[in-house]
């Protein structure tokens, strides 16, 4: 039983990371109806920019690379880059395409993916880099002692961080003026325009927030598996999460992430041996497919309200 819980907890904690990436998709989809395929590239760009600045800063300022100041300076610079990237995307790519069909916008974000990947590597190079957040990936001792389970310190830290991020985003959406305006824009662009909500500002804010989420996700993923091109593929893992949780729901992204994380690990351990293993890679997609058949709007997605 201890082993079961160990796998479950490990799965849930890694699910939090999927949720983080999925969150970026949800934010943009909710506010502008665009499925931003470039979210994965943004995660990669964010992590690479952070590591790049962290390496450069000691040379500029004469501080130690491991110092806290350098960490936060690099974080601030990376965040600023993400905000600029987000606002530029809105101005250059999406604004000229206002009122075009969804598929056009979607294709534009696919193009954006390659552009962002290319720019990131052109600036910072294509080498795999390590990223140290100062939290080691080792078991928490008292859990190991008392319950004989291995629970990674790093995973718990990542989960807590994601939890805080999500809670604050949810509060922002629910109770602030801008948050309300964001939801209003998501519901009906025309009506939002008619009551004087400036759509461009709102979209710029959303892209900036999505950039921030991408940065946090990039840091955690990067610290776990190195900052490398493969980070962009983590975005693909967010797809089943979105289908499960619903494209329009912040809590959905979290719960979806947890379910995907837990189920893929459990499936690998318990069902894997029966079919020769390696099912972790495709199990989430199968789960998503099943969900599409049963509940297409996802667990928490907004149902399309139609009066007849």
């Amino acid at each position, binding site marked *: 039983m201890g082993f079961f819980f160990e796998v479950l907890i490990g799965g849930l904690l890694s699910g939090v990371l999927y949720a983080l990436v999925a969150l970026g998709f949800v934010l943009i989809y909710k506010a502008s109806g665009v499925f931003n395929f470039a979210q994965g590239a943004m995660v990669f760009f964010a992590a690479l920019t952070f590591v790049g600045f962290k390496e450069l800063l000691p040379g500029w300022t004469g501080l130690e690379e491991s110092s806290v100041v350098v960490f936060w300076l690099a974080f601030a610079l990376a965040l600023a880059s993400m905000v600029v990237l987000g606002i530029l995307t809105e101005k250059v790519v999406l604004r000229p395409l*206002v*009122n075009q069909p969804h598929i056009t916008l979607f294709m534009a974000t696919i193009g954006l993916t390659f552009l962002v990947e290319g720019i990131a590597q052109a600036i910072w190079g294509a080498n795999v880099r390590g990223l140290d957040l100062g939290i080691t990936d080792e078991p928490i001792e008292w859990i190991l002692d008392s319950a004989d389970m291995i629970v990674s310190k790093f995973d718990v830290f990542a989960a807590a961080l994601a939890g805080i991020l999500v809670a604050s985003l949810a509060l922002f959406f629910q109770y602030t*003026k801008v948050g*309300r*305006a964001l*939801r*209003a824009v*998501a*519901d*009906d*662009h*025309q*009506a*939002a*325009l*008619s*009551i*004087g*909500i*400036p759509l461009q500002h709102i979209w710029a804010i959303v892209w900036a927030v999505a950039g921030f989420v991408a940065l946090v996700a990039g840091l955690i993923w990067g610290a776990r598996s190195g900052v490398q091109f493969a980070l962009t593929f983590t975005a693909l893992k967010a797809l089943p999460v979105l289908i499960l949780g619903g494209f329009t729901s912040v809590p959905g992204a979290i719960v979806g992430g947890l379910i995907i994380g837990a189920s893929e690990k459990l499936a690998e351990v318990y069902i894997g041996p029966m079919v020769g293993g390696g099912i972790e890679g495709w199990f989430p997609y199968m789960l998503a497919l099943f969900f599409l058949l049963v509940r297409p709007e996802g667990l928490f997605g*907004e149902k399309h*309200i139609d*009066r007849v």
Partner: protein
Amino acid sequence: MTSAATANAASAAPYLSINNVEVIYDHVILVLKGVSLQVEKGSIVALLGANGAGKSTTLKSISNLLGAERGDVTKGNIEFKGQRIDQMTPNDLVKRGVIQVMEGRHCFGHLTIEENLLTGAYTRSISRADLKESLEKVYHYFPRLKTRRTSQAGYTSGGEQQMCAIGRALMAKPEMILLDEPSMGLAPQIVEEIFEIVKDLNSREQVSFLLAEQNTMVALRYADYGYIMENGRIVMEGAANELATNEDVKEFYLGLAGEGRKSFRDVKHYRRRKRWLS
């Protein structure tokens, strides 16, 4: 002329005036072919006409919502309180007090009624207490909304949604509301209720209204002045009570034939009023 009379003439410069406005959609479809109309401060003006006559387009050219539908004002000008407003963004216009309530209500379906109303105050930077006061004011005019305040707007009735849309516009503290087809798809009793509230807002809050309507009979009963549109032009105008008794209006818009049916050949044709100065 005495000086008092001149001052009076100056202040009588039209509150909202549209001069010879031409609107083209998608660079090719000519929808408004030179429309001119005026709204006096504190009045209710009805813009009447059949489907596709250009009523909504006229309203959208004022509120500048055409851009999002690839429409363009290609000629003419629009003035509000003596200032040109045809290049302003909807955001600026709402701040200046001109707001449109769109046809088909367009409430934010997944927001509650109260959240819908709160978004209406987006352009105003006001304190929590003032916001609360504005909200109470809207609830005072639309008591029905108060009882549904926590329901998602998408699940409320058509009448409630129309009230929500008007209430949302009120939250912006407008001086002039452009109301597009408030009666659309509503039961006659609800239509009456909504027009009563419009009249009430007009007299008590001094909000001027320009409303586009197909329901000519009701609109003329509540309006002070009316314009009738056909094919992108204004073909007739007059005080509301005069229009309501005009034989041709009765025949074609009110469906009240005087003596039997008339042949279309005998119908008097109205020519567009030419305006040489735009």
